[in-house]
């Protein structure tokens, strides 16, 4: 079993002041490597180009905290295609920045066609919880896990449309994926809350349907209602339901390594440095109730 790293935060540029003031309050920083890169396109000889200053920023962060990588651009759900170049870049980044673990999403954000090759969907769209998708996805996560020397986790997705007539319930699908795909789970409690709010299922019952021994990381965040639906907008503090779910699930996740707070930088003014600290501290209080020793690696 891996050791519990503690409570971390998802990096965004608005955090510099928080890092300067309250940097000791966090145990690790999670980064989205894709935001530091420009993707010059499939087949380009210098496909993934680090933006100016990005390497220095990542080095600065890694000098102070352990780093965790949360990818958003692999689009593992894309049918009929596996992006070998993306994986190669992931491996390269792992060698350079020594992430404690890596993760991606259970969704697709790109498609491929004969006209332009690859193009973006511009958001993470859900996959049907079908056997065909399970096989396809598990093959990909196995390849990634074999290439990385750290654990690879898959995050449960948020969705705004229900896909009819699926082979599996979501919880069962995720459980099967962990087994067949040799991957851990990044349990996003805010996504669970958003889906449960929009589609009316019981949050705790859903959590109980998962294999919680596969959960290595938990995401917590806040959201808001737009267009008549609850969105995972990361729009400030976590709401009460998310805190309740965190308190419910932490003691059931024996292999938990970290709890990560996420907010979108455009909501920094709403939170302020003290508000961010309050979120971190609240998460830590809950973790400390159930996890006795935090070990910073």
């Amino acid at each position: 079993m891996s050791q519990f790293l503690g409570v971390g935060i998802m990096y965004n540029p608005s955090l510099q002041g928080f890092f300067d003031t309250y940097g000791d309050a966090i145990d690790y920083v999670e980064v989205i490597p894709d935001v530091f890169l420009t993707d010059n396109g499939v087949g380009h000889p210098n496909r993934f180009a680090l933006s100016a200053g990005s390497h220095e920023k990542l080095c600065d962060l890694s000098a102070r905290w352990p780093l965790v990588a949360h990818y958003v651009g692999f689009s593992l759900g894309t049918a009929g295609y596996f992006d070998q170049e993306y994986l190669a870049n992931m491996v390269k980044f792992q060698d350079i920045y020594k992430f404690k673990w890596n993760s991606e999403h259970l969704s697709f954000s790109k498609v491929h066609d004969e006209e332009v090759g690859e193009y973006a969907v511009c958001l993470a769209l859900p996959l049907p919880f079908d056997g065909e998708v399970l096989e396809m996805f598990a093959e990909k996560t196995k390849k990634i896990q074999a290439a990385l020397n750290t654990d690879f986790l898959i995050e449960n997705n948020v969705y705004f449309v229900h896909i009819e007539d699926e082979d599996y319930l979501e919880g069962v699908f995720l459980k099967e994926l962990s087994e067949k795909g040799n991957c851990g789970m990044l349990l996003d409690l805010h996504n669970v809350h958003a889906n449960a709010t929009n589609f009316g299922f019981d949050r705790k019952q859903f959590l109980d349907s998962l294999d919680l021994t596969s959960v290595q990381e938990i995401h917590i965040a806040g959201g808001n209602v737009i267009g008549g639906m609850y969105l995972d907008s990361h729009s400030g503090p976590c709401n009460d339901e998310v805190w309740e779910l965190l308190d419910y699930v932490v003691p059931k996740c024996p292999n938990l390594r970290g709890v990560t707070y996420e907010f979108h930088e455009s909501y920094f003014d709403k939170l302020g440095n003290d508000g961010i600290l309050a979120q971190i501290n609240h998460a830590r209080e809950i973790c400390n109730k159930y996890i006795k020793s935090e070990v910073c690696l």
Partner: protein
Amino acid sequence: MSLVAFQELFASLIADPALCKKIIANPSLLETDYDLTEREIKRINSFFKQKGMGVNCMLYQINRYTPVFDLMPYTAKVLHKNCKVYARQFWDGYIKTNFQFRDEVLLFGAYMQNRLKNEPETVPYLQDIVNFEITYNRIRYSLYDNPADGIPFYSTQLNSYTRMVFMKYDLRYLIDQVITNAPGTVFDDIPVVNSWYLIRFNPTITMHAVDLETAEAILAEKLDISTLPASILDGGFVVKTKVPA
């Protein structure tokens, strides 16, 4: 592969509300125009009955506006309500985007430049605003080639964070007005200067109007560094030491 067709259609629908309307009006298109299974056809039809489909379309639009609003904020502020109209027209010609912020913003900038050539705007200084934002975004993304229209211009005598661009209006005054006034405000008192400017971006933007002689020397890559005023030299706009041939 059917799942491939399902994902392509799902992506197309959220990017293109007109396609949603077309299929809602004629559901048999799902059978005739797409390689879908019966179950996938039922799934797509059920999407149209869910409010979440509207949310997906909205999120697509918010996400695609983001590069323009974040990286061309002055253009967006000057265009105001028209920004969404023009962005939508730009997307219609580039629906299969790679969604790299660099490409989104530079292609939208090129779309605006082309539009302004063919249909002059009622806001006369919009072209300068667009060119200014293209300029600092090309610096942001370390692009050193010179576009065919010469906007902006780079030579090895310039600092890698500097480009030169021609402006009809007083750029500093213009940007100050855009920053301090409400979106969509039209100004009729921007001085016309017809001047070249050096624009530097690292990490803040600085600008310096240059006389015609200096600009011509930069364009010809024959700039005599020793004759430049301190405001250009100390401002970090040019390479101070001689660049090897």
